[in-house]
């Protein structure tokens, strides 16, 4: 285990005091330190939102990009430099709203990037509008009389997609969360950890989550069983935490691509074509 202080930034998170995202930050640091991945070999790609302010609060390479687009940036970076550990960290608006198509396709192609969604079931940074995961009935600025819009269930959807690693954590449970993140990083291919991360300002679900959560490790859950995973993902009374589903039999997109094109670390790679390649390159010109 490396020292977590290796990952300390000198930038103080601008999150509200008590925001769930602090817990997620600790868990990510702990997970990286535990796996002994050095800061310079980590790239965190985020979107826009409170959750997406993550890079900079942790000392790794960061790409703080566009709302909804953390994954395609991560996918490109990982392809260009397969030796990086590439995480996408963002909010529920980012990943389950505007950017969800990227999640679906990154999952189905099984890219070797790890998605952590800090899910507070609300648009935090834009001052508390209804998000795709806000519950039916929730009152927000955009649903002043209570939402009558069915929310998205990201986990059951991704199980339907055939995602190879589907988990849920809670930012109030840092230790378990760190373990989930470690498992996600070690997984062969795409993994998603949906992290319930309460927004104390617009949607404080701490008590709600605490009173309803339980760990899948405490029940005899078979994570290789899709149907069991689906049932767990659709529970409404209780909130299961842990790994819902995992399948390590499918090679990742990156493995498959690497086999054919043998992509390598890019810095030394930029050079003109060889004479042989030139011939191939212009063979189509005549």
């Amino acid at each position, binding site marked *: 285990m490396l020292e977590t202080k290796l990952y300390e930034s000198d930038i103080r998170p601008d999150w509200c005091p008590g925001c769930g995202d602090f817990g997620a930050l600790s868990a990510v640091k702990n997970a990286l330190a535990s796996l002994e991945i050095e800061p310079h070999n980590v790239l965190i790609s985020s979107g826009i939102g409170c959750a997406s302010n993550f*890079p900079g609060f942790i000392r790794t*390479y960061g*790409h703080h990009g566009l709302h909804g687009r953390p994954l*395609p940036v991560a996918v*490109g970076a990982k392809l260009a*430099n397969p030796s*990086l550990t590439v995480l996408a960290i963002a909010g529920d608006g980012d990943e389950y709203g505007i950017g969800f198509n990227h999640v679906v*396709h990154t999952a189905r192609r099984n890219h070797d990037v790890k998605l952590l969604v800090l899910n507070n079931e609300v648009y935090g940074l834009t001052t508390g509008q209804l998000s795709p995961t806000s519950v039916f009935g929730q009152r927000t600025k955009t649903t002043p009389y209570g939402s009558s819009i069915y929310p998205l269930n990201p986990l059951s959807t991704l199980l339907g997609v055939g995602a190879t690693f589907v988990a849920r954590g809670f930012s109030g449970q840092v230790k378990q969360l760190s373990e989930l993140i470690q498992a996600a990083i070690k997984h062969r291919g795409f993994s998603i950890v949906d992290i319930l991360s309460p927004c104390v300002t617009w949607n404080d679900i701490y008590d709600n989550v605490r009173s309803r959560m339980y760990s899948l490790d405490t029940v005899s859950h078979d994570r290789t069983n899709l149907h069991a995973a689906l049932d767990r993902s659709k529970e409404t009374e209780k909130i299961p935490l842990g790994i819902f589903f995992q399948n390590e039999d499918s090679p990742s997109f990156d493995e498959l691509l690497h086999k054919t094109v043998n992509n390598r670390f890019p810095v030394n790679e930029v050079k*003109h074509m060889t004479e042989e390649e030139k011939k191939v390159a212009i063979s189509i*010109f005549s």
Partner: protein
Amino acid sequence: MTDKDITIRLGAAAGDGIQSAGEILTRMLSMSGQYVCTYNGNQSLIRGGHVWFHIHAGNWRVTSLGNGIDYMLALNQIAFDEHIGKINQGGAIIFDPKTVKAGTIPAGVTPIRLPLTEIALKYDKRPLMKNTVGIGALAALLGIDRKEIGEVIQLQFGSKGKQIVEGNVNAALEGYGLAAKSFVPTKSLEFDYSKKRMFTHADFALAAGAVNAGCKFYAAYPMSPASPILHYMAINAEKMGISVLLAEDEIAAMCATIGAAYAGARAMCATSGGGFALMQEALGMAAMNETPIVVVDVMRAGPSTGLPTKTSQGDLNMMLGISQDDFPRVIIAPRNSEETFNTMGRAFNIAEKWQVPVIVLLDFGIGDGGYSTVDNLDFEEPIDRGKLLTEVGDEGTWFKRYELTDDNVSPRVLPGTPNGMFVAKTDEHDEYGHDLSDVEAGLQHAVEKRVEMMNKRMGKLTGIAVEMNLPEVAGPADADVTLVSWGSTSNPIREAMRQLWAEGVKVNSVEFCDLFPLRWKEVAKMLRKARHLIDVESNYTAQMAGLIARETGIMIEDRLLTYSGEPLEPAEVVEKVKNVLKKEIGVSVRNKAL
């Protein structure tokens, strides 16, 4: 050596194989020392309708489609009816009287009636080879050596087996024999079988040029007429070690390109206007976090879905206004395949040296839609990755990725480098890539830093402008009329000028390949020298003239504009210049089908 050239057109329904017939003929001509320039009259459907393939070939560097049609092969009725009126005096039209009913044939045009289908059926159960017979016939009219036919057909169909090759060769030779008997050529070419010329369209040239420049990452979502770039990358991915990503949409393609570039690859993506529209937000991101990328828009006729298989230069304004607020971008519009290949090394160098997005603008006419000869490919443009560090000292928590410097370019480091950590940020940021938009925003020091950061980013444009090429002046310095053009529109202008010069008209042209940023004062000086300017563009609003006016105040009121989807013919330029010399000044619009 006298200048000789000829125009040929093949017309049929989509699915009849006219594309491949056209390619065979183009290859035959190129292998006989001809310069070529072709155009695909495509439609946005897969089978049926009416498509044609036009070839202009000559022993001088043809750049455009020539004028009218010398020799025509009409495989169906609509091909006959649609093009018969465009055949030049002394020309000929080949058709099968069994499938095509000849209406009135203009005087001076020779009808050549050949049993194309009958011959084709000799070599295959289905009459697919009728276009091969036609090619043979055309080869006879052109006077190409019979033995070239065999060679080229071997090249085209070699992979399909001996039987198919032989069938095609024999079919072609029968056509050759019959046509040679029935027509005494009025126009001829000067062949040099020792000169084998290469030809390609700008899409392939662009892809090859990019790969030569070290591009190892390509992402795309298919879109006509940019798809050939993707196909090129896909077919060469394994041999060249290129990572190709078939993205779920253009936004993902662009973002993945940025991710790959951020991680250190020379990375590119390409699309057409509609796809580019979707990429705009992300392009602003690349400019903001100073990630070097190359982005290609192969323009087609719009607006919106428009005419997917027709040409236009309608996307310049989009490039000038990409997404929100001001940021640096570079825009280059190569004029032909050769220049496209040779531009790509420069495009990547500018992107990496200045850490900005570089946009390459092609159009259907020279892209997917038209081949032209490539003679001088420059494989050796040096690779310049700019201020790219491979090592960083241990100087603190974060690396100063956005350091303020004299040339506005900051040293860059790639993920994986120890001590180089920084955040590539789309919020306004300080020199380490940390937010100026949250706890700092609006405080005096942050406001000042913000202005410095804007100045840094936008200031690059001044430096880049110094390195950009001024427009090329073609023709005599002393001219009565100066034609202003950009990108592919320069091609018909070149041919028009040859004609005008031959007639003693003093005309020259100012041709923009590099569009933005430029040393506009110098451009203004060049333009002010002209006695009379005519702006020639393929769009409705004269977008380049607009840019010139915006940057120099010079209003070019006299314009030749086309937005029909069809490329301009040299004859139209000739006519416009003559009218202007007759003092018929104003905006002219062309609406002819080619």
